[in-house]
């Protein structure tokens, strides 16, 4: 049985999705990549924008871009995951 994703797991999935798309992604693509509903996507996006991990880029299309803070979070999360794996937590 797969475990339910925690809030931090979802944030990580969203940021990884943006990073894997070269640092910018369309909101609809992010919704599918991070496996989220529209409502949840907006809720998490608001949080990420507030925490300055993601910025909204306006242009011909609306994009979401990962910031330096977002990359720093991904690095921290990766280390935390390794720590968790090392100690079997």
């Amino acid at each position, binding site marked *: 049985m797969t475990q339910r994703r*925690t*809030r*931090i797991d979802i944030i990580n999935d969203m940021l990884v999705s943006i990073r894997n798309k070269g640092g910018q992604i369309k909101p609809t693509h992010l919704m599918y990549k991070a496996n989220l509903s529209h409502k949840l996507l907006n809720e998490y996006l608001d949080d990420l924008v507030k925490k300055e991990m993601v910025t909204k880029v306006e242009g011909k299309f609306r994009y979401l871009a990962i910031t330096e803070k977002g990359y720093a979070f991904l690095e*921290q*999360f990766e*280390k*935390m995951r*390794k*720590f*968790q*794996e*090392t*100690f*079997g*937590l």
Partner: protein
Amino acid sequence: MLRFLYSPVWFYNIDSIFEFVTVIIAILVAVYSYKCYKLSGDKKYKWFSMSFAAIGLGFLAKILTNFTLYHEVVKTKAIGLIIITSRFIQKDVFFISTTTFFYHFLILLGLLGIYLILYKTFKQKQDIFILSFLIFISTIGSHYRYQVFHVTAIVLLFFIFRKFYQNYKKKLTKNTFYVAMAFCLLLISQILFLFLGLDVQLYVLGEVIQVVGFVLLLVAYITIFRK
């Protein structure tokens, strides 16, 4: 009856250096685990952090005990007056008893914390209370028979090692191997300490094995941060 001196004379203070290394490593793990708690909000990291902090503080209490004991012994030798020495020891016996109590209690509490986190039983408050109480009783017992402390530590370390070994078998990574080996060595060191009444050299061997165990934990810790 409390038994204070375990170490051979030539090993005085060397064991404190070893214990200082263990304090640093335990605190490093505790601090990083706390950072993980701040990042994720997951309480298991907070408890893990507190468990390692307790172990670090426990070893710090042992350093204080050793420092007081060895300091007195050196003084006795230098002065060569038995009466003065015995009065001096009397004065410090309360301090030594207290630090020894905290050494035993904090180490056992830390090990219990790790055990509860690994076996995912740390959410049941009733179990935590009962087990903490038993640890307290065991610490009181250790005041009269030092073996009580080592037997309790052996039991806890055996189950902790078992869980880390299972984790290694599941993941098969270098890091999980280091952690399993580290706790295996800590278990062996406690078994050696249990029998140090037979030969004081076992204390030296136990201390060396114990510090190697902690160094392995440090290796695992460093590997986490290597890119």
